[in-house]
């Protein structure tokens, strides 16, 4: 079973996204900010990371940049899932190593379509 680390500071979003990801046959772990996500990754790199941008402690972009410097940190496919929809921000995320990008609000169809786009579903 593939693993997905779900990183979002909203418990509600995590609950909704977890259900969608489990329907896509992912084993899901959760983190509520970038630092907690890094701890998860250092313990075991997930296959995929669904990543919010704006979070306390460490935001999604800083997390992604840090992740890519970690041993094995180039492996996980990272899909941003955020309210940020400015094309400049989207380019920043892609340049930092994200492979896809979801603009909130999202639903199951969008996550499924985006994961398919990235070869993840």
């Amino acid at each position, binding site marked *: 079973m593939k693993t997905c680390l779900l990183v979002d500071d909203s418990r509600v979003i995590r609950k909704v996204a977890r259900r969608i990801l489990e329907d896509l046959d992912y084993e899901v772990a959760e983190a509520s900010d970038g630092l907690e996500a890094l701890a998860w990754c250092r313990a075991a790199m997930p296959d995929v990371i669904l990543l919010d941008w704006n979070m306390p402690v460490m935001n999604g972009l800083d997390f992604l940049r840090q992740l890519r410097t970690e041993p094995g940190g180039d492996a996980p496919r990272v899909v941003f899932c955020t309210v940020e929809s400015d*094309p400049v921000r*989207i380019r920043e995320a892609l340049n930092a190593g994200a492979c896809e990008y*979801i603009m909130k609000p999202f639903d199951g*169809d969008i996550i499924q*379509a*985006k994961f*398919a*786009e990235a070869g993840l579903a």
Partner: protein
Amino acid sequence: MTPDDIQLIVALCKTRAGLSIDPAKTYMIESRLGPLARREGYESVSGLIAGLRARREEPLIWALVEAMTLNETCFFRDRTPFNLFRDEILPTLSRMRGPEPIRVWSAGCATGQEAYSLAMIAEAGKDIEAHARVEIYGSDISERCLEKAQSGLYNQFEVQRGLPIRMLIDHFEKVEDSWRLSPRIRQRVRWRRLNLAADLTNVGRFDVIFCRNVISELDDAIRARVLEGLAAALPADGFLVLGEGESPLGTTDAYRPISGRDGLFARNPAFRIAA
């Protein structure tokens, strides 16, 4: 709605556009006609039908038929046909046509995402197939759909279904809460209102016809006529691309399948185009 109302709707859709509507699906009929009823100032679909009986106006009849068409679409829907277009159809035709234009028709294009997906592929391929000139045409029966297609303006939900994020930022600009396709891609597509169930004799010649998830909505008798009309528009080395699970085989002998390629057909050499 009364059974008579439903019968009238079913009959209008069949005679005007060849659409096959299941009279048992009253919920579907209500949900498709509800917005039209409200736009026309009626309180209900029953009111709209009563108004239509009283006014007998052609624009209202056509608005009803248009509202009953299924406009479900998205960018790069089902992906595989677009990969085939990019990796096989376009390179093959490009070699055969040389500097002659390759004409591609998105028949029943709804709000335009299919035609624009093809346009984005053609734009990306222009460096590889430098001499190829790809002309893309989109047609639909619905004026409202074509207006949206021409605007090239899509909401956030629409641009997140099927469209890779890199294509979004390469080809769209953000306009408030929506996204507008660049003029470069918009200018690649020409639009035309066309009823596929009407006479297709003068539509012109097309090297590739995408007609996906359209024929399955048509009445059996009309389906054969539409498929033969499309075959007549295809050259012998052209391609017809149908939707998942759709096939002309068994309906008409105008086509032969292309081996190993689901949904891809060529004109049957034995098919005689009616004079």
